[in-house]
């Protein structure tokens, strides 16, 4: 399968993840959507790297995976903290920035 196929796959997964981020009520669900988006990015990177023969793409993917792990951990920590303070995990209730 050519590069186009993998890019198409990544695009589909990306948009599904975006849909999840925009639509879901629960904060943790939003984080799941973010995970999907990041995964699609990784697929993109690896695909390009493979088809051009340059390994830097794969190295980059290792790095992004690590960073994503850190981000997920901290994001969930913040969700738990928010729970403690505001007793809610619903994203709609977290609107202190409301103008």
């Amino acid at each position, binding site marked *: 399968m050519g590069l186009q196929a993998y890019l198409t796959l990544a695009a589909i997964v990306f948009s599904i993840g*975006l849909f999840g*981020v*925009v639509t*879901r009520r629960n904060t943790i669900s*939003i984080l799941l959507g973010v995970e999907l988006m990041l995964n699609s990015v990784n697929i993109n990177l690896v695909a390009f790297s493979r088809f051009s023969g340059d390994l830097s793409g794969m190295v980059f993917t290792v790095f992004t995976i690590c960073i994503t792990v850190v981000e997920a951990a901290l994001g969930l920590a913040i969700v738990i903290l928010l729970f403690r303070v505001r007793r809610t995990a619903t*994203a*709609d209730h*977290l*609107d*202190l*920035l*409301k*103008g």
Partner: protein
Amino acid sequence: MMTGDGTFALAALLLHALGFLTLAIVAPLRRLGRPAAFFSIACALGSLAAAVTAWQRHMGGAVSRLVWQWLPSQGQTLATVGVLADSDSTVMLSLVALVACLVQIYSLAYLSDEPAPSFGRYFTYQSLFAFSMMGLVLAPNLAQLFICWELVGVSSYLLIGFWYKKPEAARAAVKAFWITKAGDVGLLIGIVLLWRLTGTFDLTEMRVLVESGALPVAGLSIITFCLYLGAAGKSAQFPMHIWLPDAMEGPTPVSALIHAATMVTAGVYLLLRTEWLFALTPDVLLIVAWIGALTALMAAILACVQDDIKRVLAYSTVSQLGYMMTAIGAGFASAGFFHLLTHGLFKALLFLGAGAVIHAVHSNDLPHMGGLARKMPQTAIVFLIGTLSLAGIPLFGGFLSKEEILGAVWAGGLPGPFIILMIVAFLTAFYMFRVVFLAFFGHPPAHDHGHGSHTHPHDPPAAMALPLWVLALLSMAVGVYFTFTHPEPEFESPGWLTPAAVSAALAGIGLAWLTYERKIINAASLAAAFGPIRYAAIHRFWIDDVFEGIYNAVLLGFSKVVGWLDRYIVDGVLNVVSSWTLSSGDDLRTIQTGRVQDYVYGVAVGLLILLLWARWALA
């Protein structure tokens, strides 16, 4: 630039300026009252002496110009300031100086009840007026004339409204100022247009231009008409006459000075000074003559129904001003000017005499007077002299000047105004002798007018009597002198003119005698015979109401429109813009929901739009 000897004229002018400035600046002197008055009178006497000397030197037609540069413009002089003394201006100067001096002496006694500070204030204003009137008379150019013209208006306002605590006086002063100002707008426009046409303000230069035929005549009618408007305002021609009767709220000496002899004649004087200009526009002169005649007739009718002695004299002044204007309109300005001079003398006399009567009876109203000839013989004599002059009886001052006007109007080919003026001569004699018979003859009124202990009229004190006698003697002297040394008029009068005029006057006197003295003709039925005219006259021909109506409708209406525009359109636009801003701000606020998801959504949509644009717009 200086030719001839204008120093005496200048001295006359500057003495009054000295009087005014000293009294205006040195407030302690002014507040002392009588010393201020004496200072002002001293200046007036000196000014009179200087004026008469100047007149003597210029009687034969000599012309002196004494000017200084005043307004520079592009290296040349735009306007000068100074004096232009010739035979006309110096004799007018002498009249002004004489009447101003006599009035100030008269005021010493007439206003003796005034508290000292306002007494001093009065004389300050008197000096200001005399200075500005002389500046006007001696003006070598139209710029100085206009400034002095306005100063005269200001002085008139100050003097009419001297008793400013009286609401009627304050209103009358404002009314006078407004009406004359309306005319002054025309004057200013005329002066500027004239400058544009000739390139100069100077009267001498303009005259040279006109007499050499270098002045383009096109469009000159508008200019002269504008100048006439200014004159009509000051000289109370119809319809701008309405301020003069109301101006009688001022002290009587003020009326004698300003509204008989000097300020109101400024208009006539202006037309005299520029008669060579008006000669080029005969159509405007025709308007001048007709309006003058109509003013004379209307004012004479109005004078017949007045009960206030000063109002009778005020309308009489308006009527005589109409006479002068008609003569000018006929093309013989010197006849008008002659009448101006004699009228100045006897009208001032009549006013001062009326002032003596008012001072004695403490009332202006004719019904409160009667049989005063026995109690105030001196006043009666001088008043009678003045009345005979006004009526135009031979040997008295006004006779020859009136006859000359009638002759001028006839020679100018204006039969309509001529007939009107004849009728007015009859009416003039009638209403003046009505006053004489009602006030000085007959019986005193019953003592139930609530005057208390003031019902013992007597002749005025010396300070008031002296000016009266001086004016009376001068009126008679002028009359006698000109009767025997008849100067050659510029025109031929028909032989029947003099007898016709004198008979008209005698007829008027006869009618008044029959009605008010002999009581053969009932006054009431005489009035009823002229029913509708009388009714209109009592309502002053509703001219005041017309003015008020125009003011309310036009000015106030316009103000209301402008106010509405300001509130709803100007403010409205601003308010709408501001409220739009606020409401759109409120609406835009809803974008900030505070929820991160919505922001991500916004980012996604924005990204979408960018990609769409990149694909189609750029590709």
